[in-house]
C-alpha cells in the first residue's frame, strides 16, 4: 500500500467528513480516495484517454448547457445536457485554493 502524503491525508479527511457537503462527498463509503483514483487511472489508461481530456469535454458540455438555465439543451446529435445551479460557492476539497459554482451538469442521450 502506497504511503499517503500529508496532502492526501487531508484530502481523505475532507472527502470523508461533512465539512463541505451534508454527509460528506464519500457518504458512508469507507473506500480510500487513493484506491478510487488508482482504479480510475487504470480504467482511463485502458480506454486510452486522459483525465484532462474528459475534464475539457465536461467543461465544453457545461458551457453549452448553461444557456438552458436549467432546461435540457441539445449538445450534439447524440447527447443533451442540463445544468442546475444553486446560489453560493463550493470550496475545492483538494489541497489547493479555489472556489467554484454550485453546479451540476447532467448528460443523457438525445432522443
Amino acid at each position: 500500500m502506497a504511503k499517503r502524503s500529508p496532502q492526501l491525508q487531508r484530502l481523505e479527511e475532507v472527502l470523508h467528513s461533512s465539512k463541505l457537503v451534508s454527509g460528506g462527498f464519500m457518504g458512508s463509503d469507507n473506500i480510500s480516495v487513493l484506491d478510487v483514483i488508482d482504479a480510475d487511472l487504470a480504467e482511463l489508461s485502458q480506454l486510452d484517454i486522459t483525465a484532462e481530456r474528459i475534464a475539457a469535454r465536461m467543461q465544453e458540455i457545461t458551457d453549452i448547457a448553461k444557456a438552458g438555465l436549467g432546461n435540457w439543451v441539445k449538445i450534439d446529435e447524440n447527447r443533451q445536457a442540463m445544468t442546475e445551479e444553486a446560489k453560493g460557492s463550493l470550496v475545492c476539497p483538494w489541497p489547493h485554493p479555489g472556489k467554484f459554482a454550485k453546479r451540476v451538469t447532467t448528460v443523457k442521450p438525445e432522443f
Partner: protein
Amino acid sequence: MILSIFIAVVIVSSIGAALAGLLVISEYFFANYGKCKITVNDQREITVDGGNSLLSVLVDDKIFIPSACGGRGTCGLCKLKAIEGAGALLPTEEPYLDTEERELNVRLSCQVKVRNDLKIEIPPELFAIREYTCKCVDIVDLTYDIKRFRLELLDAEIDYIPGQYVQLLTPVYQGSDEEVYRAYSIASDPNQKNIIDLIIRLVPNGICTTYCFNYLKVEDQIKINGPYGDFRLSDTDAPIAFIAGGSGMAPVRCILHHMKNTANNRKAIYYFGANKIKELFLVDEMKMFEAQLNDFQFAPVIATPEEEENWSGQRGLVTEAVQQNLKNASQYEAYLCGSPGMIDASIKVLLGLGMSEEKIFYDKFE
C-alpha cells in the same frame, strides 16, 4: 541494587516533573497572550483573551462579521481591514484577497489570531447586526423542492432593509458535525418585525438546506443573525424590472410588501422564470400585489410547459421574455435574483437592450 533502582526512579521522575514544569512555564509565556485590546473603527475598544481567532472574539462581543463557513477559512466572506497588529498575511488567506485588498490591509478575520493589541476597521452597518433566537412556527411546501419557513423572533424585533439577508445557523446534526452559517434572503413583510420568512430551495447534499428540509420541525428553536447585504430598492422613480427564478422570489416578495406598505407608485414588472408549471408558486399573492400596487404586473414565464397543462402565458426562458417584452429598457432599473447563471444571462440581455450597468442590481451570494 535496590538503592540503584530507587535512585533511577527518582532521577526519571525528576526529569519528567522538570519537563512538565517547563511545559507549563512555556505555555504561560508563549501560548498565553494575556488580555488584548481591539480598537474597532477608532470608536470602540474591546478587551479579549488572546489566542483565539479575530472572528470568534468579535462574535463573542456581538459584532457579527458575515461568514458562511463557520470560520474555517473556506468562504472568504469575513473580510475586514486590520490596520495594526494582525501579523503577516497567511497562505490560507491569499486565495481570497486581490492586490488592492492586500494593499488596504484587508484580512480574513477567521484566520487572524489575536496575539496582541489590534486596530481594525469594519463597515459601520455591521454594528447593527445581532443574533436572534427564533422559533420555527410554520413550514409550507411551495413546490416539490422549495419550502417557506416562518421564524418567530423570541427575544427582540428586527429592522432591516427589504432585499437584505440573514444568516441561519445550522446546528450539528446527522449530516454535519460542525455548526455552519448559510445566507438566505428575507422574504417576509417588513412591517412584521417579529417574523422572518425564508424561501429555501433544497440543494442536494447542501448542509443547511438538508437540515431545514429533513430535520427542522415546527416549534424547534433556531438562531439567525443579520441583517446583511446591499441589495435594496433604489430611491429613484425609474420603472422597475424584477427578474427572478426559484428561491430568488424571496427578496422580491419582501420588496413588493415594502412597496405596498409605503404606497410606492413606481411602475414595476416582475418576470419570474420556471421550467415547468409545477415550479410556479405564490401566484395568488403576486395577483394580490397586482391589485394592491399602483402599476405592477406579474409575468410568469414557463420554459417547457407540458402540452396537457394548457399554459396560456409566456413560454421560453425568462431572459427571452425580457428580450422580447421589455420596451425602453434604458429607462428601467433591473433587480435580479436567482441562480448565478440566470443572473449572468439576464445582465447580458439587459446590457444588449441598452440598460446601463449601474442600473442593474443583484446579489449572487458568492
